[in-house]
């Protein structure tokens, strides 16, 4: 019993961080109807930036979020303007190929710069844990979880309380309607993509203390994120949070009770099963697709 509680608690801690990582993917999909397969590569890129900041300047990885988030925002904005903007109106099959091309180009570039070596960031608090009775909570996990919550809360406020945020949500709900009331869909899309990549900036910094990573790890991460977003409902932010917590728990439970090597299979199976039984996910809505856009 103790072991189960411990496992679930650790799963929830991981899930909170997953939620932050998946938020950008679902946001971009919601507004632009583009599956950004490069989101995993952006995560790893940010983790590598964090690694550099930590080894060269000794900057704490959690504090470095203040650097990686704006940097990745900029990266996202540039990538949008240079590439993604050109295929805004292309069919879904082409946009996914483009983001996939982005992912492997980034993977290749990271391999050239940082080599294919496993890395991780290990600040001093890394090894110790908080204890509550017989349960333990690794400090790194707790800090990462809390940071993820704070960033998600900021994102939430940004989306609900600012004009830009409302424009993003309006474009997601009804692009034509948003355009009619004066929202420039193009700039909103650029903003959304940049914000989405910026969340990968924060997520990547947290990733760097929790997991070892190397350029090709992005496949593993994008699989995780896709599983979460598919489960929660593509385009739904609350769905991504719920999906992340559920899969975080499912993954740790599998790792503890079956085998750590099979844990990642949870995400693949979830993708297959959810898309079969309830393609719109937990929180997604099936919209009518027959009306000409």
């Amino acid at each position: 019993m103790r072991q189960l509680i411990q496992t679930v608690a650790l799963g929830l801690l991981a899930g909170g961080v997953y939620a932050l990582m998946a938020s950008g993917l679902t946001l971009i999909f919601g507004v632009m109807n583009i599956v950004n397969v490069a989101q995993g590569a952006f995560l790893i890129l940010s983790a590598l930036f964090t690694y550099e900041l930590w080894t060269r300047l000794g900057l704490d990885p959690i504090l470095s979020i203040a650097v990686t988030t704006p940097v990745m925002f900029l990266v996202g904005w540039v990538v949008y303007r240079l590439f993604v903007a050109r295929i805004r109106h292309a069919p879904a099959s082409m946009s996914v190929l483009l983001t996939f091309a982005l992912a492997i180009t980034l993977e290749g570039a990271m391999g050239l710069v940082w080599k294919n070596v496993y890395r991780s960031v290990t600040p001093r608090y890394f090894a110790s844990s908080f204890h509550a009775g017989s349960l333990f909570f690794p400090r790194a996990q707790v800090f990462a979880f809390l940071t993820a919550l704070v960033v998600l809360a900021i994102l939430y406020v940004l989306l609900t309380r600012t004009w830009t945020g409302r424009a993003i949500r309006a474009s997601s709900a009804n692009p034509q309607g948003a355009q009619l009331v004066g929202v420039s869909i193009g700039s909103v899309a650029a903003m959304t993509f940049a914000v989405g990549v910026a969340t990968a900036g924060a997520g990547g910094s947290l990733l760097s203390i929790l997991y070892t990573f190397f350029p090709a790890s992005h496949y593993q991460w994008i699989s995780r994120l896709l599983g979460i977003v598919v489960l929660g409902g593509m385009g739904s932010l609350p769905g991504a949070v719920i999906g992340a917590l559920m899969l975080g728990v499912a993954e740790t439970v599998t790792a503890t009770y079956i085998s750590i090597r099979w844990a990642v299979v949870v995400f693949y199976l979830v993708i297959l099963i959810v898309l079969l039984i309830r393609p719109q996910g937990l929180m997604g809505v099936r919209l009518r697709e027959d009306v000409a856009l």
Partner: protein
Amino acid sequence: MSAGRGKGLLRWAVLLAGLALLVAFPLVRREDAYHQTVLFLIFLFAVMSGGWNIISGFTGYVSLGQSAFLGIGAYTVALVALHVHVSPLFLIPLGGLAAAASAAVLGAVVMRTRGHSFVIITIAFLFLMQTVALNWRSVTHGSNGITLPLPRWNTDLGNMPFYYVMLGLMVLSVALSGWIRRTKFGMGLIAIREDEDKAAVIGVRTSVYKVLAFVASAVLIGIAGGVYGYFLTFIDPRGMFDILMSVQIVLAALLGGRGTIWGPVLGAFLLVPMNEITNNYFGGSPGERLFVFGLLLGAVVLFLPRGVIPTIRGWIDRIREARRPAPAPHPSATAASRTAGPGAAAALEEGAPLLEVDGLIKRFGGVVAVDQCSLFVRRGSITGLIGPNGSGKTTLFNLVSGMSRADRGTVRFDSRSIDRSPAWDRAYLGIGRTFQITRLFKHMSVLENVVAPLGRFAWAQLGADAVSGPEARRAQELLEFVGMLPLADQPAGRLSFGQQKLVELAQVLMLEPQLILLDEPAGGINPTLIQRITELIRELNRQGVTFVVVEHNMPLVLNLCDPILVLARGRCIARGSPETIQGDPAVLDAYLGEGWGRVEERLEV
């Protein structure tokens, strides 16, 4: 005509000469192992991209996990070869079988989804297979991989057996693609790519078509996997279930031209040498290769999305087009031939309801588009369906034709409940529909559009020629009936909106329907064509076809339809002759949006 035949002969001559060169190469350059291997890899990629092209090029479902079938084939053949003492080359059909079987299972699952879901599932499938191969150590030896015995043939032969087997597979792959493209099956796949809902409405049983396409796309890759594994004499999970392999498959097909028959082959001949150059001149570290292929894929998607062959073909067409004036459309109406189906003609007993809708509800999120709608349509009538914008007319058509499912309520056609029938079954029963904004397959010719509908499903029919014999003749008759025969060879996308409406009507008539749902037949077209369409509807109705017409052109509705049904807020609020409807205050209220409470009280049935 003879010029066309001469061109056909020339093409065959070129192909045979090319094939002869490839056959002769290893015999002439026996010692040149390097170039033999390069050619072997080219054939391999041509086979894989050719397979990908069937599901993603013809059918429009992009797969990023196609290399999983290579791994499945390789592992199947290798595992069997460890236990039986036969050359693995004789076991390669098993690889194809395993790939086909897994594609059938996965296809039955994923083909229920649309759009983005399919790509995501194929990626997940590839990684799932890799993880299974890594972790199921008792069978696959995990990351240690499986070592196959070296070939036992005379070492003088070198890799020649591999070379010829793969060359044979490439020829097979091109033949398979070419055959599919010519058949009704292939035409159905293209229809699915262009507009899947529309394909279902005209009787293409999309679920079966898609699974078959997926199986067809996997089988040769599986066989090739068996050959490739034996060629390497070592297989491991990372090499066999490699996402980079999938990327190259996609890249080759895109480069050459997806949806074409020779595109994948051309793409393979471009891609593999590029791969070799990167390996030989740029060090070929994984990082460099990924970087180069990533950039290349991005560049092709952005700047050459159609691929080399279609782009060049487009140029040629444009040059030809400039030289030849487009044919003028036929202005005069031709006399009607017998166009309605025998079922329709036989069942001319006026009065019995052909279509009954009872308590139908359809919600989109919070919006109730159709709300407890009940109505019936008498056999042999031309029933008008009017109502303000947003009153649920088109949604009702979608529910009746099977394009979307009702949340509650029943639809009966010819006294049979059809609630559970998919769109194609409804087409087989005799329900046809047109669309407010026409939905022809824009890249197919007008004639192909009219031949595409299928009045029934039969396995044997899948392999039949797409445009041939009695069906082509009937399609020409129907085109003549609607006055569009002179445009039969034009791509449908070039026609004017009104002309497209006429072609869409001919397309629906191909199903020999008993009931036709017309969604704004007169919307957005000129008065002459409106006159023409009205005449056609009357003529078809005389032959026994029942119509439901949604239309905003009131003079037309009042003149053509009897009875008229009025829809408001998703309900049928009035029914009657044109005179009654014109005088009904409830109808005026519905259109002017006043006194809703009163109206509902008065009209509650």
